[in-house]
């Protein structure tokens, strides 16, 4: 008997509920993913006129900052995941200040929750440099779709005139920048992982139980659910990897804030002073095992080999030095077996994002970056190549 084919572009509500029940995950992630599925059969993305964005900003600020003036609204480059607009806000009696409106398209390469991003960025103020985020529209009441507003921070994501692309993959830093940025990059990472999140306002996040692997299972369910909801072409290796991850999930010994996309391209620096001015893209952050974050930054795709054949993490710092410095800053141990486990998990997640969600998004014409997402899917087979090799090593030893 052939199972009925689900039209994922127009998913029936009983199927949406069955998938939710099959893959239990964090509350607010369930909320974001369910919202995505319920809206999937809705209209495709169409560009919003700048005048409309401006009107929405004016209405919003007449409520939250009466007497203020909005001006200079313009689209901002970058942002493979969310639409971004720069604008200036002059509050009564004050000079204009530049802000960034970051708004969800109908669907994007990663479905996330604005309240999580907002809460975490606020929690990290003073811990690492992050843009100030004074406002969030978590349910899209003001901006038509969920959005948050952060202070504009100056800086660049890649060396002026250097190579690399919109995703930050392949960024090349010269030796001076490597020295200057590599050390800061590592220290800031350590600060994220040793941050005492227990006293922060992070009620949008579920707290994983320490010394248990329940939080790891919830993360596996999150991405396995995304694969179920978004994939067009089924791939046995994705479900094979998911079952291996479930069977081998280690306990979380130390619960940390996990940035989940800490790499070149996701921080700003001042090219003159070489100081990192902001850590960006917190949308995938969650609470979990710091090995997940370390393994993410260590991925080959984000780094490169230097002239002597040594692997530079994110093109910035040699691998062993990176891990040693991180341990010196945190006082936390690095377990190589856990790094290996999370290397498999991260490769699996990346594959799901580029071969599942990015493709589905382009199929529905749901984002402002469909052509980029279709192009990014070309990174998928490289992820699968690594996933095959990592699983082979983990299961068969070679």
């Amino acid at each position: 008997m052939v199972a009925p084919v689900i039209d994922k572009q127009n998913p029936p509500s009983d199927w949406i509920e069955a998938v939710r029940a099959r893959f239990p995950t964090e509350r607010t992630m369930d909320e974001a993913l369910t919202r995505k599925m319920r809206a999937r059969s809705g209209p495709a993305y169409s560009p919003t006129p700048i005048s409309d964005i401006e009107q929405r900003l004016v209405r919003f600020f007449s409520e939250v900052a009466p007497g203020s003036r909005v001006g200079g609204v313009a689209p901002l480059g970058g942002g493979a995941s969310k639409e971004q607009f720069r604008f200036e806000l002059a509050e009564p009696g004050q000079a204009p200040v530049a802000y960034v409106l970051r708004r969800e398209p109908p669907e994007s390469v990663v479905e996330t929750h604005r309240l999580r991003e907002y809460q975490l960025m606020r929690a990290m103020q003073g811990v690492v440099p992050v843009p100030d985020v004074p406002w969030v529209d978590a349910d899209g009441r003001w901006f038509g779709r969920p959005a948050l507003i952060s202070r504009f921070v100056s800086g660049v994501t890649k060396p002026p005139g250097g190579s690399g692309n919109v995703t930050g993959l392949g960024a090349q830093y010269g030796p001076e920048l490597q020295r200057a940025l590599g050390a800061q990059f590592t220290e800031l990472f350590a600060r994220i992982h040793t941050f005492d999140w227990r006293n922060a306002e992070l009620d949008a996040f579920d707290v994983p139980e320490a010394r248990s692997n329940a939080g790891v299972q919830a993360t596996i369910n999150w991405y396995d659910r995304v694969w179920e909801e978004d994939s067009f072409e089924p791939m046995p290796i994705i479900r094979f990897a998911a079952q291996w991850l479930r069977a081998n999930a280690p306990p979380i010994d130390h619960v940390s804030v996990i940035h989940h996309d800490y790499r070149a391209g996701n921080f700003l620096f001042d090219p003159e002073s070489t100081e990192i001015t902001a850590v960006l893209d917190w949308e995938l952050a969650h609470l979990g095992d710091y090995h997940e974050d370390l393994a993410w930054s260590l991925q080959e795709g984000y780094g490169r080999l230097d002239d002597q054949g040594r692997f530079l993490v994110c093109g910035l710092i040699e691998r062993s030095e990176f891990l040693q410095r991180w341990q010196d800053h945190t006082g936390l141990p690095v377990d190589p077996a856990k790094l290996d486990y999370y290397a498999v998990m991260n490769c699996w997640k990346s594959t799901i994002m580029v071969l599942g969600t990015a493709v589905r998004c382009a199929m529905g014409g749901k984002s402002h970056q469909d052509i980029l997402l279709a192009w990014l899917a070309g990174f998928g087979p490289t992820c699968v190549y690594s996933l095959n090799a990592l699983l082979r090593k983990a299961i068969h030893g070679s």
Partner: protein
Amino acid sequence: MVPDTTLRLKAVLKALDEVIEPVIPEDAALAREQLALARKSIALVIKQIPLELAYMIRDVREDMALARQILPRLGPEDPLSVRLEASIADAEAALPAAPPDADAFKATWLQMKQALQDAVDNLFAEAPDELWASLGRAVIEYSERRNLRERAWVAATGFDPEPGKLPSLREAALG
């Protein structure tokens, strides 16, 4: 092989419509005309791609029918007769039994993969060590063979770290 060719082209069309067209000055007549032609060409190709092979097969069948009618009128020693007969024989050998229906085949292709994915998912849920060691190896080897084709298929996107070690597009598709 996601995204497929037509989806890639639809994304190009969308970028032309939503990003490129609005910034071309009203008085840039040539650029606007070329853009309109580019959009129409892509829209046409999106419809043609799934049917292109079937179209050629149908076409060659008609060619063969006419060739068979012409043959008796040519002398057996006529070089054109020899050429025509050889062409009919080659076409007979190359023709599939029925013109491929790309959409129908795609449904079968997806159904096969879904059944395979579900079976792997089910078998490896709480699987014993023996299964990981035996069938697990087969699943990984299958994925490795498939992945080599996939990497070749999208090598031009520039993400692959070892593009020089990949088969050509033609080798990837035809073996």
